[in-house]
């Protein structure tokens, strides 16, 4: 169906093409063996779980299309066929084509951020209070994996901060293990000063960047 509509759109743009198109449509209307619809790959953009709409760029050697509106898709017949201009796909069609894959979509991991005192692996008092909630989530979900990633602000050298954020991550892992979390599911990492929550210049004191991010899968 999609392909015939596209044919029509293309043809209506040119008189010569229009003639060919009408003939093709006419031949379709006469009884005879129905020709199978050409197979097309579909690339569909939908809002992410937070409701934001991003952008995909679909490219092959004959063309490129940017899709930046939700529920719009571009289709491609082969590597030698340029991606179609994006057009809206209705809800029923989306369900029919993509329903199974959408049903298999895993839940987003649960995330927590714990904050630290300046140049230290000691938690702030507020974050100490929220630690039990992290533990409960790990237990209640029967988590398969818990990622613990340490971060710092930009005071100090890059190398120093890599080590400091590693100490922070290890400290949190120790606290969780002490409460009964299996160490085998704890995955410790250090991102140093390179993955700030709040972007700053170098040598900037920023409490929001002194943190450990915990992801419970």
């Amino acid at each position, binding site marked *: 169906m999609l392909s015939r509509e596209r044919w029509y759109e293309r043809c209506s743009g040119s008189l010569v093409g229009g003639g060919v198109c009408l003939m093709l449509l006419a031949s379709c209307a006469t009884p005879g063996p129905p020709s199978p619809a050409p197979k097309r790959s*579909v690339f569909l953009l939908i809002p992410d779980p937070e409701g934001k709409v991003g952008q995909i760029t679909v490219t092959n050697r004959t063309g490129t299309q940017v899709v930046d509106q939700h529920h719009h898709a571009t289709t491609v017949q*082969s590597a030698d066929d340029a991606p179609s201009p994006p057009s809206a796909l209705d809800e029923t069609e989306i369900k029919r084509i993509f329903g199974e894959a959408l049903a298999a979509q895993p839940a987003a991991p649960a995330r927590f951020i714990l904050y630290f005192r300046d140049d230290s692996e000691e938690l702030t008092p507020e974050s100490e209070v929220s630690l039990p909630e992290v533990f409960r989530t790990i237990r209640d979900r029967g988590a398969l994996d818990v990622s613990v990633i340490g971060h710092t602000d930009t005071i100090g050298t890059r190398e120093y901060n890599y080590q400091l954020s590693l100490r922070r991550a*290890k400290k949190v892992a120790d606290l969780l293990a002490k409460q009964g979390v299996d160490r085998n599911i704890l995955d410790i990492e250090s991102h140093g000063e390179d993955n700030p929550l709040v972007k700053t210049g170098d040598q900037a004191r920023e409490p929001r960047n002194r943190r450990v991010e915990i992801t419970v899968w």
Partner: protein
Amino acid sequence: MRALPAVALAIVLVLSGAIAGASSAIGLVKVTEGMATVQRGDETLPARLGLALEEGDILRTGADGRMGVVLRDDTRLSLGPESEIRIDRFLFAPAKGSLGLVVKVARGVMAFVSGNIAKLSHDAVRVETPVAIVGVRGTHFLVKVETQ
């Protein structure tokens, strides 16, 4: 001053090396139903819940199969029936500035929710299919690959 004694530094470096070496896992299986497998080299493993994934893994589903996986940067991939994808490249070490995700969809249907790699680097995420390549900017999208 934030100076660290040389001995302590050496110990920490050894520890961090051990951690980096231990985690070749790039994600794990969170949803599995019907015929669903993970091919690693010559080995084909049933896609059981919690199975750790590695770079280069090929995920496949049969006619009654579905599979959902979460990667370490929070990227979520899920497959409908009769689908096959390969996680060609997964690099997530922001401290080293190395970020990259390449997923090849050979056939079938995949849903994609991007994670931190896409958030941190606009051009680091690519989905390849036999008919076209998709550049991804922080988004949720669906692809069906059907070739002639």
